[in-house]
């Protein structure tokens, strides 16, 4: 993306972002956030599921603060080793969240006074895409790809800028909440294959 804001301004704001992050980096690292690189305009972070034994690298995230903070940062999930953005078909996490649906009254079921009518709960990915070959974007206000999407033309960056919606720690917290924290263990698949018969002593 072309830098149209005075580069010195964006660079100073970027450096302040990184300095604020560094102040609490030890706490962030303990939670599994490893900041690998911070060179204007990019920040590269790797997320580790620290509760697993052994800990597992889950994903990388590449933030781009070009034109910050006249424009929000770009945020992509990337391969933690190559920094290549993941295609939808390769995403290691969809950052799924629970979304309460409409009330679902059950005919004939008498609820106690004050009890809430059951609701359907669905799961929605915060990472959004159309085709399997697309590079998904994080559908959260404060992210460049979100605000550039035609569906969000009424939700301007200016409405979120002063709340720090594009700050490093805030965006990483989203990945932590929906990508790291739900991981409780490795998911193992054991495949048993018959390859022949066990033999006793071979007869003479």
């Amino acid at each position, binding site marked *: 993306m072309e830098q149209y804001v005075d580069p010195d301004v964006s660079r100073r704001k970027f450096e302040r*972002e990184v300095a*604020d*992050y560094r*102040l*609490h980096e030890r*706490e962030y690292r*303990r*939670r599994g956030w490893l900041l690998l690189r911070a060179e204007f305009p990019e920040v590269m972070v790797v997320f580790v599921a620290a509760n697993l034994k052994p800990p597992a690298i889950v994903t990388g995230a590449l933030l781009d603060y070009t034109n910050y903070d006249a424009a929000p940062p770009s945020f992509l999930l990337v391969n933690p080793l190559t920094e290549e953005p993941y295609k939808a078909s390769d995403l290691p996490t969809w950052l799924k*969240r629970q*979304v309460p649906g409409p009330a679902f009254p059950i005919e004939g079921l008498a609820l106690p006074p004050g009890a809430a009518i059951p609701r359907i709960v669905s799961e*929605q*990915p*915060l990472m*959004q895409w159309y085709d399997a070959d697309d590079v998904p*974007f994080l*559908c*959260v*206000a*404060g992210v460049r790809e*979100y605000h550039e*999407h035609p*569906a*969000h033309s009424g*939700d301007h960056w200016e*409405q*979120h*800028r*002063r*709340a*720090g*919606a594009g*700050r*490093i*720690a*805030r965006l990483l*917290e*989203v990945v*932590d*909440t*929906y990508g790291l*924290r739900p991981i409780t263990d490795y998911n193992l698949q054991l495949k048993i294959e018959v390859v022949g018969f066990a033999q006793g002593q071979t007869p003479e």
Partner: protein
Amino acid sequence: MPQEHGNKIALEVIVNGQSTSVEANLNAPLHTIIPKALEQTGNAGQPPENWELRDQNGVLLPLETKIEDFHFAAGTKLFLNLKAGVGGSA
């Protein structure tokens, strides 16, 4: 150095990554520190209910609980971040 005086305690609140010291009333519910932290860091535009508070391990803290009941040490770091809000609507 953060201190505890009577029913007050100084907590370090990191608002979207920016640090501020908030004097909290031990007898008040935890959510009372949110407006103060937002004001002190100049975060405007999003109401307190759009924020969530976590401890150093990333555990979400119940906002209605009295601050005293958390047994925080003076200067404890708490992390205040905007909720993900809108999502999955594209």
